[in-house]
């Protein structure tokens, strides 16, 4: 398979403008500047079938189309580089190894919606990546890809890199916007949506790093080329970050629809040390876990993962072998979400901590028989009732671990200890 997103990452000095240009970089931008109207760019992206790679999978071209054309307010493009989903590290690779692809994609997106200021909101912990990205932005300015009258078109664009301060919730697009505005990273109540009332109340498009990085290739090679890849509804390729009990962890670019089992066993080398697969989270910690016996027919696209009762999410594949205590894994994830809940709305603020406390008791031999149904009930009471998707992100994995490994949870409660790992 021809690589689209990872086409440059293994090239020497791939993060520099010179290397990027020598490999066809900024060709798409020149094409846009020379011969494409903003409407034409949006049509092309719609035709490509590209969907948001941050987790929600919303069609990118359609998102851009929601931005009002006649608004007197400034419009903004925000690149969401606040990659924080546990088990996900694909954007970091792109930023460190191919920053110009992100910048070029950002310029194309900004041009298509008529934005003259774009922000890249990068996770604060990615200190090295933000240095690389800032250097790349500086190079782009010097080369005339950013700033006044880009490539002589009369179109101006400034790109501002902003480092976050370490909150998972700022990866949620409206939490990100609140943070970027200088406020507490609290998600905004919707409606209104960012397309009409986003950053500073102005029309705003928020796109994930991976989404933007796919744009240069799509424009350069044509939407049809991209749409030819993948499945009927999941077009193109997707990055997967693979970690855990797997022989070859790392970032993989996979054509949508690729068999999941084959991916894990052949591409990633399977579970090491002669052990057996116990479960795998396919889309980052917020997505429901799949048991080993559930992955046989699953394909790596939005629809197939959904049909299997989970989601593609951010593509953070976390592999767990038979030595993993699923109670402890569930507690670990619950603890993460309890720590990261922003505290704005009541179900998430109170429910996440409550679930975490119960998981802790069960893992530490203090569980009670009613606890499992209680967690399922709390999780159900959070689901769908919160301001932002964080509530679902905390509720879904909690319920999935119990439903799929109930016997193991019950054994913890019955024996009043962790039945998997000696260390507890």
């Amino acid at each position, binding site marked *: 398979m021809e690589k689209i997103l990872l086409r440059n990452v293994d090239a020497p000095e791939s993060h520099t403008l010179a290397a990027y240009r020598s490999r066809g970089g900024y060709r798409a931008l020149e094409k846009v500047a020379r011969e494409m109207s903003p409407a034409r760019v949006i049509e092309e992206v719609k035709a490509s079938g590209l969907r948001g790679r941050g987790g929600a999978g919303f069609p990118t071209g359609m998102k851009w189309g929601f931005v009002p054309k006649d608004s007197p307010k400034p419009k903004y493009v925000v690149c969401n580089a606040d990659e924080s989903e546990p088990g996900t590290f694909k954007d970091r690779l792109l930023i460190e190894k191919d920053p110009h692809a992100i910048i070029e994609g950002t310029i194309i997106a900004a041009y298509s919606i008529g934005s003259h200021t774009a922000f890249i909101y990068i996770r604060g912990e990615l200190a090295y990546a933000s240095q690389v990205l800032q250097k790349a932005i500086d190079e782009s300015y010097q080369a005339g890809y950013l700033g006044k009258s880009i490539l002589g078109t009369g179109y101006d664009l400034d790109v501002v890199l902003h480092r976050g301060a370490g*909150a998972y*919730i700022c990866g949620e697009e409206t939490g990100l916007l609140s943070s970027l505005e200088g406020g*507490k990273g609290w998600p905004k*109540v919707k*409606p209104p949506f960012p397309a009409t009332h986003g950053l500073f109340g102005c029309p705003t498009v928020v796109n994930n790093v991976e989404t933007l990085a796919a744009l240069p290739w799509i424009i350069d090679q044509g939407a049809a080329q991209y749409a030819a890849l993948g499945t009927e509804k999941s077009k193109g390729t997707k990055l997967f970050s693979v970690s855990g009990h797997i022989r070859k962890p790392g970032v993989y670019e996979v054509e949508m629809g690729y068999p999941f089992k084959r991916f894990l066993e052949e591409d990633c080398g399977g579970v090491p040390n002669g052990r057996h697969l116990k479960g795998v989270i396919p889309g980052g910690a917020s997505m429901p876990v799949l048991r080993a016996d559930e992955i046989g027919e699953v394909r790596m696209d939005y629809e197939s993962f959904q049909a299997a009762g989970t989601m593609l999410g951010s593509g953070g594949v976390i592999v767990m072998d038979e030595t993993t205590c699923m109670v402890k894994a569930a507690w670990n994830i619950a603890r993460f979400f*309890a*720590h*990261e*809940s*922003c*505290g*704005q*709305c*009541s*179900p998430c*603020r*109170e*429910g*996440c*901590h*409550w679930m975490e*406390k*119960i998981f802790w*008791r069960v893992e530490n031999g203090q569980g*009670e028989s*009613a606890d499992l149904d*209680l967690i399922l009930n709390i999780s159900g*009471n959070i689901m*769908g*009732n*919160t*301001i932002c998707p964080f509530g679902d992100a905390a509720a879904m994995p909690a319920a999935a671990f119990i439903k799929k490994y109930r016997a193991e949870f019950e054994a913890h409660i019955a024996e009043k200890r962790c039945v998997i790992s000696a260390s507890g």
Partner: protein
Amino acid sequence: MDLVKLTIDGREVTTTKGRTVIQAAEEAGIAIPHYCYHPKLAIAGNCRMCLVEIEKMPKLQIACNTQVTEGMEVRTQSPKVLQAREAVMEFFLINHPLDCPICDQAGECWLQDYYMQHDLRKSRFIEGKHHDRKREIFGPHVVFDGERCIKCTRCVRFLQEVTRTEELTVVNRGDHSTITLFPGKVLDNPLSANINDICPVGALTDRDFRFRVRVWYLQKTPSICPGCSTGCNISIESYQNRIARFKPRINEEVNSHWICDEGRYCFHALTEVERLASPLIRQEGGLVPTDWQTALGTVVSRLSAAPPAAGVLSGRSTNEEAFLFAKLLKQLSPQARMEVFYRERELTEVERILKSPDRSPNFRGIRDMGVSSDGGFEPLLRELAQGKFSSAYIVAEDLLAQFAAGQELRDALAKLAFLVVQDTHLSETARLAHVVLPATNFAEKEGTYTNRKGRVQRLSPALVPPAGVLQDLEIFGRLLSLAGAPSAPPNSREVFSQIAREVSRYQGLSYERIGTQGVQLET
């Protein structure tokens, strides 16, 4: 105005476009429970108590942030909605200390009320509760209990949107979220105590009121704040014939949902005084008690014998009192000059949101009743101090205490041939009087005030006056008949009817028309 038709719980409801579901439901008399929603504050959407089911929407929606659309079908009582409400109540209560027996909010707490209406379950929470700051002083009027707080952010939004003073914010995350003062700030803006009113739970309580009385014992009387001429609508809340607190009463034409701190606490100074129990008359050696007949007879004979007279009414006198007072003074002393006490002070920007620059809530109405002279109060006072009057009738204003440069005035008052002072207590000014008439305060009387903008509003008696005193209105009425004038109507309602006949701008008004929200005079 575009109309939108929708159904709520099967009932057809018509409302205007742009309204939210919670507003449309309220108009139709359907209460959707809520904490964070407040009609005067921006939508926060954080409490999740107002979740409702809307046809064709897969998830429950918050009624406070959902605009009505034509044909929308809303269900506020479906099993899914009831379950979500129960769940939200449970989330609010798991870390709550459940200390109702010692919480001052008990009895007017939305957690208590909604628990009874929408939850009524035993707790399923057996973990250790999260702890937070207790009894933290936010400012002179506000004390905070972090453990009772539900983080609805009404207080934060009030301080951002109404006073724009921004003393409070939310810090920390998850169930460690808490409300706190910005470093170096004190919550002492002139409207600060309103956040005690809008806090739906026991997190913010009023330092002046708390622990004085359980709220279910309070008797509530609609009235008007006597603090200044804005005329904020209030509820006088009393217990055992004492005022326990003022609460704002909603009137969008005057004060919306708010009152200022100065007005809120002004009842202490106005009512907590050592009350006179009988009229006093000057004899050699000082003021001694006398009976009403002697006192009133002395006033009539000595005032008419010592022209010209000056009359000073308090700004807290009612229109009805002023109407009789004007008639009385003209009857007794045809050259009398009379005025209502009026002085202005500088106000800050935040004070100007509600406060007027005076402390005379009814100066405008009193002048309408004929208690006015050319030039206003200050020239009259100056002439009084310069000894240009032989007698004076001063009602419920301690002129000597009001002015630093009192010596000249004191000497002038002492030299008057006759001084009558009518007040609730023996003020500095009253000590100089020949006759002191014990009267009533704003909370003991019926009547009307006309605010600075010309809105006529009703006072209602919340307290019973002490034995031995007379209503100001009755004093003026009895003096009028002693002076040989046609007898005055026996109560304020009928005096007001007479006002409505005789004072052209008040024509056609009645207590019924004024009601609880007042009537704006035509300018």
